[in-house]
Each structure stands twice: as C-alpha cells, then as structure tokens.
C-alpha cells in the first residue's frame, strides 16, 4: 500500500473513532489504534524510501484546492505522533474511565481524535490557508482536552491562559501566512529559498511557532496547562503538540530564506530555555508541573541543534551543521518518547495516590514496581545518560558544537558557551531527576495515600512499556534510526546529502550495548555475592536517633535547595516561615513556592497596566448626552482648526 492509501485509512479511522467515541469505546479504541498504525506505516514508508508523497485533488476548501504532501520532515514528526497517539489512546481507556468521569470521558475521546487528526493534518497540508484552519482546530481541541476537569478553578485558569497564549501565537501565524500569500500571490507552500525578500517573515514564524513550542520566555502557558490536563493528554501535549511549533520552525526555516541573525537568535533562545527550564523545574514540588518545565528545557536542547544548523547553513559548513541538526531532530523523537513515558508514569502515580504533591509521596516502589522501574528508565533517558536515547541526541548536538569549535570564527565563539551550558543543563537535569525518583519512589511513604497506593493495570502499563522499549532501542542501536534522520534533514537542506551514518555512532551503539550488558551483569554478581555472604535487615542508620519517622526524610524542596538558591535571581521563590524561637518552641512551619516568574512579574503587571489605562479611558463613556455633544463640538473645532492651519493642502 502506498502512503496515500495508508493516510486515507488513518484519516478514516480517526473519523470513525470520533463518531464512535460516545457510544462504543471499544470501536473507538480499535479505530484509533488502527489509524495510528496506518499513519506510522505511511511515515515509515516515506522515511525508508526517502521519496515524497504528494496528494492533490480538485476538491476545494475555502476556494483553495486540497494539496497534501508527506515528505521526510513531515513523516519524521508523523511517526512520533502516531506512536504517542496510539500509546495514549490505550492508556486513556484505563486512566480516564467512564465510571469515574461519566461526562468528560466520552467527549474527551472525541476531542482526542480531533486533536490527533488535526495535528496529523498540520504535518501534511501544503497550503497556507488550510494550515491555518487545521492549526486552529488543533489548538482549540487541545483546549477542550486540557479543561476536562473544568469544575476545578485552577484547571479553568490554566485553560484560559493556554487559549490566550495560543491565540497570540496564532495571530502571528495569521500575519505570517498572509504576508507570505501577499508576496507570492497564492497560498501554496513549498520551497522558495531563492526569494530573499521573504527572509524577515521568519521573525513572525519564530514568535508564532515559538509560543506553541514553549521556548523561554514564551512558555508562560505551558506549565499550568500540562500539569492540569489528564496525564495522557499531558503526554501528547508535551510529546507531540509542542513539537508542532518545532515542526513549523524547521519547516519554514527550510522552505523560506532566513535572516542572517536567525541561527544566532534560535540558538540563544535554545540555551536560555534549556538552562532556565531546568532551573524552574528544580523549584517545583508538583510532579507534573516539574515535568512540564522539563519540556521547556528539552525544547531548548532541540533549538540549540537547530540554531547551530542554521548558522552552519548560512556559512556553508555542511559537516557540523548536519550533526547539530541530526542531534536536534533525534531529540524531537527522544523527548517525545521519554517525556510521554514520564507523564504516563506520573499519571499512574496520580491515579494510585490522588496527589501530585511530591512531599506527600515516597516509597512507591513497594506498591508500584512497574511504574517505578519504567519512570526511572525515563529519568535516566531524560538526564541524557548513557546507554539510553537521551544521551545519543545530546551527544550528536555536542559533536556538532565541538566541530564548530575547530572551524573557529564567530560561530565557534557561540559554540563555547552553548557547549558549557548544555553540559550544565545535563547536570541540572540529573539533579532534578535524582530528586524526583528519590522522593517519589524511594525511601518510606510520607503519607497514608502513598502507603495505600496500588499498581496500575495492564492497559496503562503496556503503553509505558512500549515507550520505554523505544527509548532503549534508540539508545542501543542508534544506527538503525540514522536513515530516518537523514531523510528528514535532506528535506530541510537538500544540499546536505551525507547519507552514511557517522562512524562513531556505530561504535557508540556497540558501547551502549556493552554498558547495558555489563551493568546488568555487575548488578547480578553483586547481588549474588551479598546473598552468599548473608543479608541482615535493620533500620536505616540515623545517627543513633531513636524514633525516626518517614516525615523526617529529605524532601524535594530541601534536595533542590542548593541549586534553587543559585537561581534565586530569576526563580523568585516565595517563602513563608515561622521559625521557632521561644524557649519551648511550639509551632513551626516552612513553605516555599516557586511561581511562574515571567507570568507573575512581567505579563501580569503589563496586563494590569493595560486594564488601568483602559479603565481610565472608559470614563469618557458615561451616557450623558450633554458631554457627548461637547465631544462632538470639540472634535469639530479641532477639525476646523486643522483645516485652517493646513491651508487646504
């Protein structure tokens, strides 16, 4: 079957799913998963063959004939969408059940299909007008999925913030596509690199797609939206939806000429997002909010790769540019996989305990061994540690940066801080995920709910296992996925025709295999030796303190305290403490909360300023006729004055 038929099957499956979502949830699941498999097959076909599939009909929507195109780049993102969409659908069956959510589960399934269908269409339409339509549908359907629990106040607030921010971005995109159409004379999209007058449009695209991608400081909507959505929705939003912004940036920086500064700005924003994203993540004590901030960090890593690729393309350095781009693109997949895995893991913790507050959890490995193990796997991957996939993509970006160094010149000057800060980001992410895994899954339960937690069922476990396997596969055999990256980057920059995998990638894969095998062997050997010598169990050593309680364990806040102290200048944590100081101290408490600084210290003051000015202006409008006549007279007098002074020119 050709990609065209497969895509048709996928589209039909989504529509059937949409209709059957209300009555027959098994039909919905079957249709949605079939459609995901068909889309995955279409994407794999294009990525393997390296050919572009084009579909044109005379059927017109909005006066424009339908023009679909699945090239390497679209297929690369479509593959991720299909895998995560399928996994999320299965997870949703057990996570957001009709019994627990009688109203929101059924309509949620329908909106889920609208979201997946429109994200797929965003990837394959090649017409500006249709792009805007499906983009808007995708944005709005995500709003309805985020606000599944709209009886809760913070969910409504998160939804509104998302809607407002998304539409600010869509506004930029309207301007972008309208200017593009005005310059080219039609809405058709395609490669037009030679038309240099289009270059300044890139800034509009950067603002519009950047808002969707959630790069710093345009990320204000992201943490609350991703934290308050149901977990399978958070997974698809973090894994795929924000990648639509990346897709837009990669797509239009490949099709259109870009300004000279573009690469620098993108890389700079990438570094900023990476470091500050993880710094904000460290300050969080809400599990899902923390994961959401890590999306900002990983978008930053992707943008570092893209930014340096753009610099390389501008200067004609094919070799390291391709490495940086390959790293960035592979990180799109990797982040999608491990972030979805982590969100699904966080979802099953939330499902089992009913809380996202990390300081109320602890010791969950006893009751939830599968979730704990898979979440830790995702944590190793997201911290960029060998032998998993996160390291492979970060390593490719690093190689690009180090090769840029030997090219000297201005780009090398940019590569030094970028490489150092990428390393710092990795170390900060490691600190953050040691904190998460340690506080949530290890130690002793800090509350009743954590004690009474239960493992999730197989429908929730299987999607996590699938995603974890994908993380391991890319980590251990990165060479297998190299052709897909090459096809995608050839769609971005046709002149970079390097198709052979860089030799070290093969060695790295082999080394990762050795690491995995020997680590397992060492663990087994040490365990056996310990068993052989005899194991005695006793309480944890606490300096001889007689009555330790689980609440005395180190908390998430204290664990991150050193690092959040370094970033105090931007995190602006709010502290409420009552220090005991009487001879017989009675009450003491300490609270720390890291707000969304950009939102609370930049956007909200600006908003309230606008409100104040508007209120002041509104005083003119009060319904007194005499005053209105006075305004008219003043206006007429002013006009007469202008006419007299202007002298009839």
């Amino acid at each position, binding site marked *: 079957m050709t990609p065209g038929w497969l895509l048709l099957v996928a589209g039909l499956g989504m529509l059937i799913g949409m209709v059957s979502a209300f009555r027959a949830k098994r039909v919905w699941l079957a249709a949605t998963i079939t459609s995901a498999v068909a889309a995955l097959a279409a994407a794999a076909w294009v990525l393997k063959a390296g050919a572009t599939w084009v579909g044109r009909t005379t059927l017109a929507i909005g006066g424009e004939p339908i023009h679909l195109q699945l090239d390497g780049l679209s297929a690369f993102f479509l593959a991720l969408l299909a895998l995560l969409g399928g996994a999320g659908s299965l997870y949703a069956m057990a996570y957001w059940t009709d019994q627990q959510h009688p109203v929101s589960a059924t309509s949620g399934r329908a909106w889920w299909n609208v979201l997946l269908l429109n994200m797929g269409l965003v990837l394959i339409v090649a017409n500006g007008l249709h792009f805007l339509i499906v983009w808007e549908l995708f944005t709005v359907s995500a709003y309805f999925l985020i606000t599944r629990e709209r009886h809760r106040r913070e969910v409504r607030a998160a939804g509104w913030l998302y809607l407002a921010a998304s539409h600010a971005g869509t506004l930029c995109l309207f301007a972008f596509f309208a200017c593009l159409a005005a310059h080219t004379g039609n809405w058709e999209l395609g490669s037009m690199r030679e038309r240099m007058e289009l270059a300044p449009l890139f800034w509009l695209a950067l603002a519009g797609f950047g808002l969707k991608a959630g790069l710093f400081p345009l990320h204000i909507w992201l943490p609350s939206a991703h934290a308050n959505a149901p977990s399978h929705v958070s997974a698809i939003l973090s894994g795929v939806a924000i990648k639509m912004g990346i897709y837009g940036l990669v797509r239009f920086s490949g099709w259109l000429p870009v300004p000279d500064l573009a690469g620098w700005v993108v890389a700079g924003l990438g570094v900023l997002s990476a470091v500050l994203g993880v710094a904000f993540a460290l300050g969080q004590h809400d599990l899902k909010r923390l994961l959401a901030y890590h999306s900002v960090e990983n978008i930053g890593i992707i943008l570092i790769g893209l930014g340096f690729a753009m610099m390389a393309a501008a200067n004609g350095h094919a070799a390291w540019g391709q490495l940086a781009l390959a790293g960035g693109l592979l990180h799109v997949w990797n982040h999608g996989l491990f972030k979805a895995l982590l969100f699904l893991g966080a979802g099953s913790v939330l499902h089992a305990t009913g809380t996202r507050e990390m300081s109320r959890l*602890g*010791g969950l*490995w006893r009751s939830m061994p599968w979730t704990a193990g898979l979440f830790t796997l995702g944590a*190793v991957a997201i911290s960029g*540690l*060998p032998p998993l996939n996160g390291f492979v993509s970060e390593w490719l970006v690093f*190689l690009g940066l*180090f090769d840029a*160094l*030997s090219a*000297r010149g201005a780009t090398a000057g940019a590569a*030094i801080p970028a490489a*150092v800060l*990428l*390393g*710092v980001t*990795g*170390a*900060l992410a*490691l*600190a953050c*995920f*040691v904190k998460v895994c*340690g*506080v949530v*899954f*290890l*130690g*002793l339960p800090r509350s009743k709910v954590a004690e009474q937690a239960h493992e999730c069922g197989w429908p929730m476990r299987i999607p996590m296992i699938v995603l974890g396997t994908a993380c391991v596969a890319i980590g251990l055999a990165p060479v297998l996925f190299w052709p897909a990256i090459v096809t995608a980057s050839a769609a971005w920059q046709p002149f970079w025709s390097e198709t052979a995998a860089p*030799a*070290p990638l093969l060695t*790295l894969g082999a*080394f990762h295999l*050795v*690491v995995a095998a*020997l*680590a397992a062997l*060492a*663990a087994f050997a*040490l365990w056996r*030796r*310990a068993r052989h*010598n005899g*194991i*005695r*169990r*006793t*309480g*944890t*050593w*606490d*300096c001889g303190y007689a009555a330790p309680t*689980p609440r005395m*364990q*180190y908390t998430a806040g*204290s*664990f*991150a305290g*050193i*690092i959040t102290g370094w970033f105090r200048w931007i995190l602006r944590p709010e502290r409420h403490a009552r220090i005991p100081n009487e001879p017989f101290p009675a009450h003491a408490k300490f609270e720390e909360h890291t707000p969304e600084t950009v939102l609370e210290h930049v956007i909200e003051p600006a908003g309230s300023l606008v409100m104040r000015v508007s209120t002041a202006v509104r005083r003119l409008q009060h319904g007194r006729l005499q005053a209105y006549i006075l305004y008219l007279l003043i206006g007429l007098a002013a006009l007469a004055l202008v006419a007299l002074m202007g002298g009839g020119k």
Partner: protein
Amino acid sequence: MTTAFDILLRLLLWLLLAPLVPGIINKVKAWVAGRRGPPVLQLYYDLAKLWRKGVVLSTAVSPGHIAGTAVAWMALVLAALLLPAGPAGAPLAFRGDALLFVYLLALARFCTALAALDTGSAFEGMGAAREVSYAVLGEAAIITALIALSLQTGSVSLTTMLAPAAGAGAALLAAGLFAVLLAENCRVPFDDPNTHLELTMIHEVMVLDHSGPPLAAVLHGASLKLLMFSVLLVQAVLPAGELSPLTAACALAGSVLAVAVGVGLVESLLARLAFRRVPLLLTTAFLLCLFAALVSWRGGHL
C-alpha cells in the same frame, strides 16, 4: 583476540592499581602529621575483608540499592576504558568519546545518589543533594577543559586530545583540573574523607548504609575515579602521547604519584571550606579552565 586480551590486561591494571592512590595520600598525610600511618596497601586489605563480610541492609531499601551501587561501579570501570595511557592510547577511541567519558561519570553519580536516597535517611539525602548540586559546577569546568583541549588539537577523542602538551594554558588548565579532581573525589577542601560528622559530609554520608561487598564496590569505585582524574590531569598537561613507551610509563607513574602527594599535602595543610564557599572555589576552577580555553583559542590564531 589480541585486542580483547589487550583490553582485559589494561582493565586489570586499572582495577589493581586504583586502590594504591588513596594509600599513598594517607601515607603522605601521616608523614606530614608525624605519624607512621596505615600501610600503603591498607585499602587492598579493607576491600578483601569487605568482600567476605555479610551485608546489613536497611529495611527501607529497594532491590535497586545494590543494583545502583553495581551500575555506578561498572560505569566508572567502563569510563576507564576510554582514558588513554600515554603513547599506547585508549583501548577504545572514537570521535566523541570524551563526552561519553563525562557522561559515564554522570551515570555513576546518578546511581550513587539514588542508592543513597533509597535508604530514606535525611543525612544521605543531604549528601546526595550536595553531590549532585556541586557536580553541576564541576561538570561546567570539565566541559570547559575539554573545550580547551579540543580547541588546541581539533579533536573530540581523548586519545588525540591528551596526546600533546597543553601548550600555553597548561598551568591554568592544570590548576582548574586539580580543583575539579579535589571536588569530584570529595577531598579537602571540598569534603573531608576522614570526617565522622554526618552533617558535614558529601560523599561519605551517601554510603552510610552500605556494607560488605557493596561498600567494597563503592570504595573501589571511588579510588578508581581518583586514579582516572589524576591520569586525566597528568596527560592534559604532559605530552604523554608523544614520548617513547618507557619514558611515558615512567612519566605517567611519577606524575600520578606527584598528584597523589599533592592531594595529601593539600589535605594536611588546608582546612575544609564552609559549604557556602564551595561554589566559589568551583567557579574559580571553571574560570581557570575557561581562561585556558581562551588561551588555546588565541594560540591557534597567533
């Protein structure tokens, strides 16, 4: 077959020589203090004893506690495979192995810190928090040192990067890397390996609940890491890759000995820093490496 034999032989050499370094450091400290001190081979005796001993495990720990310790040790051993030894080079060398080396050390840190949090002890949580926080600055310094070496040699493989002498920025690089060595291996002035006060420790407090063979793996891993950092520091400065094998071996052995003596002297003459001063010293190490990088940048141009 010969390569496999070669790899095994070198691995054995790394594993066997590693416990010597802490022995030398302790001997130097004893001499400075006018004591006789423990024998140089003390750590070997300790390891052999611990390997035979039973294990006392906390009731709170998961099966990941022992696994984490083992993975951390294995990550350090595999990192040793990537380090070159003079003109013989590394058993495994490819473009980008320098970054793999840094990230294998990070993997070891991840596993050690998680094994510490596994016990649920507040002290061990404190130690793990300090370890991963200060490592952020240490990582910045190491990456910058790699940038300095890469600027000079145009390579991202440790074997080529470490072969020539460090050039004009050698003193800066050596000072920066020495500070990182002290921090990463938890020596004075960052941490005191001999302290018995849990509140003030970093690395030692993370392993309070380890015993028997797992403790042996921790101690051996720590000594291996110390040896690796000494070898890295020495080769970053000396043109070890360009000497004849015999001279290189002697120079390498002599310099590692000198580093160990240096660590011992620092430990005898300095007091441990207050914790709030630690970031300052690590930032200084980072800046030293950064200046070394700038020197190699200019060196390439002039």
